[in-house]
């Protein structure tokens, strides 16, 4: 506004450099031998002669990184889909039908989010063991959905609150069923809310470690967060391989983000403006 755009660019770049330093360092250290990285004077600019892609080759040779990525994507996308359906319905009903029971359900929904996952995972383990869902990606997907639903429902309720109920009532007068009115009027108008919830749910599932570690043990079913732990050994950390795997794990997210970014941002803003 008052500051010149060039000044803002410089300021923003400096801050971004600060924000991105750990990411930069992850990539740099994946390319260097560890005895250089963890020396008393770490080289902030990698010496070109020391750069090697060996850690990347090692990761692919020794660890099933692709399996972890596929598993993570499956669990993440699956739990987003499941949780999105449930929380859209729940959010709609919390917003439109306010009985005492529903309000109570709304409270409990959120309160249940307040227990630490390290505790909630125990009943999950017991329950999944008796249903044979232990060590299954499907079970993990379900668990992640359950973790995300409370807040996502609440988020959706907020978005539905922003859409006047009169629109649906008008549609019903025109002969639409309640379900039809919800599906054709409210849900499409709520797209930014769905996008925001999907992002939230995606992060929850993508970053989950506690559930994945406890509910799944078979290495073929490991997700990324668990797999990365396997670079931390009894006596030493495979620093370069850990950082190489970490760098590689960013690729699918970046691609996904590049594809979705215009949709997410414009969706969010359009939605808000349309209101």
């Amino acid at each position: 506004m008052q500051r010149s755009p060039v000044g803002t660019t410089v300021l923003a770049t400096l801050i971004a450099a600060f924000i991105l330093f750990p990411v930069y360092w992850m990539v740099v250290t994946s390319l260097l031998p560890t005895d250089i990285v963890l020396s008393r004077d770490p080289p902030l600019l990698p010496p070109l002669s020391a750069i090697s892609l060996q850690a990347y080759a090692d990761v692919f040779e020794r660890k099933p990184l692709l399996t972890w990525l596929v598993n993570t994507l499956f669990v993440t996308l699956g739990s987003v889909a499941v949780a999105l359906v449930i929380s859209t319905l729940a959010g709609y009903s919390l917003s439109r039908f306010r009985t005492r029971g529903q309000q109570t359900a709304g409270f409990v929904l959120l309160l249940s989010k307040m227990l630490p996952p390290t505790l909630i995972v125990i009943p999950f383990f017991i329950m999944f063991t008796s249903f044979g869902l232990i060590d299954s990606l499907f079970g993990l997907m379900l668990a992640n959905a359950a973790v995300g639903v409370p807040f996502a429902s609440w988020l959706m309720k907020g978005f539905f609150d922003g859409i006047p109920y009169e629109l649906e009532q008008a549609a019903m007068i025109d002969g639409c069923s309640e379900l039809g009115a919800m599906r054709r009027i409210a849900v499409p108008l709520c797209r930014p809310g769905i996008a925001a919830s999907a992002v939230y749910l995606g992060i929850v599932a993508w970053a989950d470690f506690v559930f994945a570690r406890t509910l799944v043990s078979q290495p073929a079913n490991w997700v990324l967060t668990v797999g990365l732990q396997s670079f931390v050994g009894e006596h030493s950390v495979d620093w370069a391989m850990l950082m190489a795997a970490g760098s590689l794990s960013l690729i699918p997210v970046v691609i996904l983000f590049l594809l979705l970014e215009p949709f997410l941002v414009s969706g969010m803003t359009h939605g808000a403006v349309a209101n």
Partner: protein
Amino acid sequence: MKTTRREFLAAASALGFGAAAGPAFAQQRTLTYIGWSHDEAASKPVLTEMFNAFSTANPSVRLETIGFPWAQMQQNLILRMRAGQPLDVAQLAERWLPTFAALNNLADLNELFGRAALEEKIDAGLLRIGQSGGKQLGLPWTAASIGMVANRKVLGDAGVNQIPTTVDQFVGALRAIKRSNPEAVPYALATKNNLSMSPDFQVWLWTFGGRLLDNDGAVKVNGEAGVRALSFLVDLMKENLAARDIDRPDARRLFGQHRTGFYADAPLARGFARDNSGQGRAFDQYVAAAPYPVVAAGNNPQSVAWGHLLVMPIIGGRRPTRDGDAARFVQHLAFNDDMQMKYFEAVGLFPVTKTALARVRDDAYVTQWARYASFAEADEPSKWANAADLTTIVGEEVQAALLQQKPPQQAIADMARRLEQRMRDVRRG
């Protein structure tokens, strides 16, 4: 990219069914082994080779090996055993044994192999690390101690030409190192992680003649020896002869960079120094197995017993038999001298059989280490099922004193009080 296809299939089958633990080949018997070492980069190649040797010799057995990260091994193993998932043989750290013994479903190897047969193969002293509650629940796979390692170059640069053997000589050497290189951490005592602080403190406690607990679980640490040992370490910190924020990985790194004179580690120390220095075997000349210093010349140097065990859990009433697949596999790893030597040569883990130990006598580092290790004592908390709780208490109180949050007397008194509370639970059962 040979593995890609297999990975893809594994992922695909996981997507389809999830529960992948069932037997896949009806005509083959499946043997499930769980450990961590075969999943770590350093030991993966040699263990894969050893597993393959077993599969070749036993074509009717399909060996399924599952690797967990070290830090999650205990948790995953207990959860799996609780959930009744298949498991025939597992690798344990020696200090986890009492916790697993509490599950009450590990096979007693004395019954399985016979006491005499075990002692014929492995020295009775080494077998102790696999015993709990009077039973031989674990078979030593590798055994040694957490002992002192010294850096000859750092000592030489400081003008210390003999590895110190008494506490006074040791402190003298540390001061000399600090004088010659003010940036060095003369003694990289563990000061960060409870799991390392507890054993480091115990060795000094024993050196000064104290114990945490007696054999019945009565707390003994609250005495003169306890206060002396902790005060000694606190004084090292105050004199900058030891430093804050040090765990084993930090100590190993400092060691490989010639920035510390002493630290405590398993015999693998030589291998870590090769890696961390970037110099490989050329670094071996600087690595010396040192005795923990003693109060009076002539005392035995103390250290903590350390090793890996193989255990055979009884899952769903399936009891291992003497010539069953699991027993054969365990013997293949721990009794077979060729395998024991292969493992030693690849990663430096000491063999356990008498005959294999005889074959490594010409390596001075190994013989020195083994000599000091012969006096090793078991980690005290690990005799009890609530070992994790006890270790945390010891580690926290030691750390509080080292970071000068409370005086050593206070820390020892608090440690004793807290240990007593927890041992009451054990006695109550």
